[in-house]
């Protein structure tokens, strides 16, 4: 299953989901996105990556330990969720309709995280 196919499947399952994508934590660029073209996926992805970068720095400076795995923004236009995949090199994001059940959406992301991660670009064996 390709990454796009995995995201399509997730989009069909997760109630209220309007768009979903995978973005590089290195540079904030979107690798794959599926869903409503009306959703500003690139902007959402870029800002989510930046938020996580700031969070990492904040955790270092304050002495909090442990890598953030999930991030959620609830705003009047919708619910935005992000989940780090694999070794933290990629961020899986989801944009859901306003008033969506964020807890349920998060649960769907957790349930499908391994599947989506398996479809990510992998280094060649021995590389």
């Amino acid at each position, binding site marked *: 299953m390709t990454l796009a196919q995995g995201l399509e499947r997730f989009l069909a399952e997760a109630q209220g989901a309007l768009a979903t994508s995978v973005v590089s934590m290195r540079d904030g660029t979107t690798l794959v996105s599926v869903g409503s073209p009306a959703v500003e996926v690139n902007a959402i992805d870029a800002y989510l990556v930046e938020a996580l970068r700031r*969070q990492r720095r904040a955790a270092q400076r304050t002495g909090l330990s442990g890598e953030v795995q999930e991030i959620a923004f609830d705003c009047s236009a919708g619910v935005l969720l992000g989940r780090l995949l694999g070794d933290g090199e990629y961020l899986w994001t989801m944009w859901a309709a306003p008033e969506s059940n964020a807890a349920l959406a998060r649960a769907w992301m957790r349930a499908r995280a391994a599947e989506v991660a398996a479809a990510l670009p992998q280094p060649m064996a021995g590389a």
Partner: protein
Amino acid sequence: MFQLLIVDAEEDLLWALSKNLCKDRPDVRVKTASNKKEALAIMRSDRIDLLVADLRSSAEFDGFELILAAKDLLPRARVLAMTAFSTDGAAFTPSMGIARFINKPFDIQVLQDVVLEVEAQRESAQGVLSELALADILALLCLSKRTLRLHLNHPNRRGRIEVVQGEILHAEFDGRVGDEAVYTLMGLRQGNIFMQGDFVPAPPSVKRRWQELLNQARQWLDTHGAVEEEPVVEIPVEGWEEEPADVPAAEGESNPLGFSAEEFRELAMDEIDLMRHREGQREDSLPRPPMLRPTSSMGMMPGHGPRRSEISDPSQHTLEGVGALLGDYRAEIEGLRLGLVINASDGTVLASVAADGERLEAEVSAAYFSEVIRIALKLSHALGEDVGLRSVQLSADDYHILVRMLPDSVIAQMLIMEADANLGIGAYVMRRMEGRLFATLLGGEV
């Protein structure tokens, strides 16, 4: 040289006015702007004697907020508001206040007459934007069909006026309700006005239509007198121009958290949209309750409100009140490490509570995690002008962070919790806290 700035989204109209308005008067220069950025650039760089602004909202700018911004940027200028909303075909002229109004469409000669009339009065210190009064604010709100609640904090009393879709429907002040409360409020010579966009309107108590109400105010005040006679009017309604945050002049100076100058500059760069009041413009010594931003839902058209909020100089009494509320955090949230109420625009702590033995420092946590909130605010802004951020959640291996924004403000509740804490309870306590927090910050009026 008498310079006027005309701001309107209709570029054809601007072109026609720039070519024809006062073309026989070489001592009158007409500048035009079709959007917020252009208007602000001119207002900042040029001496403008008269601002002519369309009151209608558009994607490019909002005339009402432009006028509020001009109050700070062009305090010696005069203002002429163009409106297409008046139904009787005649320009509304309030008997109080300094703003002038002209109905669109208008004959260019009519506008020219007004411009030259203002030009003739240019040497007078009267009628300038720094004197913008409650009557002006109300007229501008009504003509632009806004929905807004104005809180008026007098040194000793509180009042409010509710404008719904351009009609003044409710007012209360010092035991008075309805029309009389409006008259009394318009007689105030001291105090602050705060704007609240999201509110549940009270049952209507004002009987007169707004034009008649404002025109009756003068007569009523002549008969009954003003609340007090001190000739000082302070109306710190904020404009909507973006301005950079203050950056410390030197490392170590005004830098209690020990950030490097570079870190401070980086923090300051995040300060989009979040207005900070200019301390230098304050002349009185009244206690300063929080100033909430003029709102996402203040306009008749969605999406054109400013994205800014502000809190400035909350009194010690207010801070103590906020601090007292945080006892609930400790009492009800098992696994709480640190609970904070912060100003997300600058990362300052209004109040905090920590678990016994907790080593996290409130000030440092607020300073750094507010960066994340500011990114979230930027993202909200990128999604739409009227999109408001409600909450942020960060879940790590060893902790959770919950943030809940006070609606239409930059004030945030923030909880740092253990990894096994019950997030649902944390979210519930913050939601329940919101009303009391809001009331405390607004001096118990909400």
